[in-house]
């Protein structure tokens, strides 16, 4: 299910959130609502659909190219690791920074993600304030500090 959040394609930063948990998606949206940078958060809850979106396939024919991808690891249909692998294996997509935002704190998950060229790995904190702080930090770092390649 696709939920377009911001439709301003001209100025806003495009963020793709691939997350099967609606609660987390909502929290992320809440956290980004008061962001310094104007952004468009697109939430796609499953891996296959997310890749279709990124490749502008099917109904995502007109989908924008995201500037930042927030990727959960536990996804239905196609696992987050596979999605990561495909993104980083795709010449057109591999420049898009991918932030792994997931519940797992397991060492092997962290290691695996970085092996698949994830740009950073962040565990979701249980505490709400901490969660919001983490999302704001992501926004702050990736959207304001880091210089990303233009399209």
């Amino acid at each position, binding site marked *: 299910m696709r939920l377009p959040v911001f439709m301003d394609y001209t100025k806003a930063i495009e963020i793709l959130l691939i997350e099967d948990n609606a*609660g987390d998606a909502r*929290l992320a949206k809440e956290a980004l609502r008061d962001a310094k940078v104007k952004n468009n958060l697109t939430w796609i809850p499953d891996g296959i659909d997310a890749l279709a979106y990124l490749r502008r396939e099917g109904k995502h024919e007109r989908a924008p190219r995201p500037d930042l991808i927030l990727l959960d690891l*536990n996804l239905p249909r196609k696992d987050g690791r596979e999605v990561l692998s495909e993104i980083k294996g795709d010449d057109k997509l591999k420049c898009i920074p991918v932030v792994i935002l997931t*519940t797992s704190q397991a*060492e*092997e998950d962290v290691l695996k993600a970085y092996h698949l060229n994830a740009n950073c790995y962040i565990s979701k904190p*249980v*505490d709400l304030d901490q*969660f919001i702080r983490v999302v704001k930090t992501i926004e702050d770092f990736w959207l304001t500090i880091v210089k990303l390649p233009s399209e």
Partner: protein
Amino acid sequence: MADPFQSGAARGGSSGWRGGRWPALLLAAGAGVLISVALFLVVRTVEHRRFRLELERRAAVPATAVQRELTDCLHVLHSISAFFYSSRTVDRAEFAGFTRDALARLGGILTAEWIPRVLEPGRGPHEAAARAEGFPLYQIVERDERGQLTRAGRRGGYLPIYYSEPAGRGAELGLDLALNRGDLEAMAWARDDPRPFAGTPFPRLAGTNLTYRCRVFVGVFTNLVAHTTMAERRQNLAGFAAVALDVTPLVSGALRQLKEAEVRGLAWQVTDQAARGGGSLRVDQSAGWPGSAEVEARIPFVIAGRQWVFHCRPTAAYLSSSGGSGGWWVLAGGLMVTALLVSYLSSELGRTARVERLVVERTTALALSNEELRGQIRRREEMETALEKEQDLIAALLDTIPDHIYFKDLQSRFLRINRAMAWSFKLCSAEEAVGRTDADFFSAEHAQRALADEQEIIRTGRPMVAREEKETWPDGSTTWVSSTKQCLRDKHGQVVGTFGISRDITLRKQVERQLAVQYLVARVLSECDSFALAAPQILEEVGECLGWGVGAVWLLEPGLEPSVLRCAQFWQAPGVKALKFEAASRALTLQAGQGLPGRVLSSGEPLWIRDVVVDQNFPRATVALEEGLHGSFGFPILSVNGALGVIEFFSARVEQPDEEWLRMFAAIGSQIGQFIERKRMEQALAEKARELERSNQELEQFAYVASHDLQEPLRMVSSYTQLLARRYSDKLDRDGHEFVQFAVEGAARMQALINDLLAYSRVGSKDKPFGPVDTAEVLRRVLKNLEIAVQESDARITVDPLPTVTGDATQLTQLFQNLVGNAIKFRGSQSPVIRISAAGDPKEGGARWQFVVRDQGIGIESQHFERIFVIFQRLHSREEYPGTGIGLAVCKKIVERHGGQIWVESKPGAGTAFYFTLPA
């Protein structure tokens, strides 16, 4: 003579020689005298002999003359005898006329006489006839004791002297000569023998006594009657013709005929050797006969049956003319030569210093060569001793060595064998084998092969070294030997036979075969995963190794009671046709006690059957006979739980039981049984391990998924409760906020639990290989992680020098972090004081390190020492000390995963020390 030894030897030799000089001269002089005397004696003897020969030669001349004269006299006798025989009658005048000439010519004949044989009846006429002839007094007379002539006494016959010419020479007419014993003997000889025989000598009646006289008789037979045989002569004897010889005129007459020179210087004597009494009677002798003489020639001759000797001695005149002084000249010359020689030697000896030196040198050289010779003799003796010793050694070797040693000629006949071999041949002594061959002791096949080998060795000259051979004895038993054979050569290198040594290696061969079988079985078992795979290989390998062509494996039918054996594997060697036997075996089921497998099963022992065809308890006997199977043995496959099956083998021959073999197969049976048992256990174990692994994987997967998936709802609960409290803060009263607080805290605790559980389950599931880990570095990281807690608690932490261990750095970090974290957490009222140290584990001698994390906190009661390491076990309320009760369980799991131990020492209020060991 620089050599002092030689010099000394020379001096000694010289003085010794001088000491022997005079004896040498004396010896030479003595020898010279002796030789001279000996020569003298020889010359004298030669002279003497020559003188005697000359004398004998000279003497022969008169002796021959005397003999001739005597012989002439005797011829007269024969003439008279012939005259009587040829005349019808002979009267006295005719007799006188016939004898007159002879008597005149021969001076030696005194008278010639006719002595008729007169028998008693004829005496009267005889005497009458004589009286008629002019002898009126004639009668037959005899001489009485006083020598007076008297008329002869009356007797059977008379031999009177009837005619005697020349008349008047003193012969007593009518004297019966038969009474003179000597004359009678001579007449008896003359009667039987035609030769003349002499009668007893008689002296001349008066006057000279030097004249010797005797009568010589010749038989006269009746005229014109044969007198050839002895009987005729005795029958026809008419009487005797006799001459009385006077020797002196006879000899002088004979000598008168000789030249004066022929008898000059000679004195002679004639003796009658046959004189009565054994002595010699002198018959005549010349004037001047020397009483004694060095030399005398004796010339014997026999006349008229008497032995006469003509003696001849030289007179002084003869001696003076015949020389004979050569011996004395020789003696004188010899003595002179001796004197000259001795004087020459004396002077030579006085001047022979140089010669002496030479002699000394020669003597020394001789002594040296003598010494050398003695040395050679000694060496030869030593060599002989050594040789004897050598022979003793060889004899000892041959007699005691258990190997067979033998020497054979070119035809492979034994020349010699040693004692051990003789025993094997069942001979009393080694000599009995000489000349015999292998064929006398071994089977023909073996003997032929050995002969061929030996002929090959003789032909090529190449030895046969350490060849392993099977010997077959006449009783069929076999032994294995290692044989080395070689050409036997004489000292010229000529091949004269072979010799060899054979060592009995039967035992080794058996052991080798057993080892081979054991090795094969062990190899097959090690290569196979199950008995089902191993069984056909065992049958094939063992069967081929032993040369037994058929084998089968019988296994117990599972779950049947009573036990039933069924043939599970059957093998036959290529070339063996045992299809019917296989079919029969596969179709058969055997209970305990039935057939070979059944009997082995019930006894649990190996069984040997020499010939299954004649065995009473062998159901397949008929088929076995049909396919030529005889010898068999079987052995049980034994495990600790009893027999599992039986393996049997069959041979095409009748086989003698071999106990060693059976013992070995009993062991192999156990080995196979253990193999089967082990494989079963291994299989069960592998199954269990696979299950465990599966369940472990499931558990880990579960733990991971659970902790992962449990956290999301938890976060939802926590986040949205907080969001709710924040958004609707004004709408919640105090209780509402408190409830929200509880919900959030619960969620946080739940998350801690889940994370700890996750960590716990991850230890051991993550197979990160161990490597060297510097624990000092680990501690630095831990303290960094715990920086906030350390600052907050104002802890004083001392870290002693720590070693590098082998392990997983992440887990060790967690280990130390948990322990240091605990030490901070369970502090008392004061700031924590913590010390971390390590030492070599005294129990392990440096292979392990023992670490201590010591604090001065609240301590633990000893009854909890075990419990604290169990998961979820807590000693305090959550309000006092928050925690999940998993930390120490994780520590224990990490330490144990590193092969170490962890324990605690503590007293309440006095602090706690956690000990654990890690590999160096």
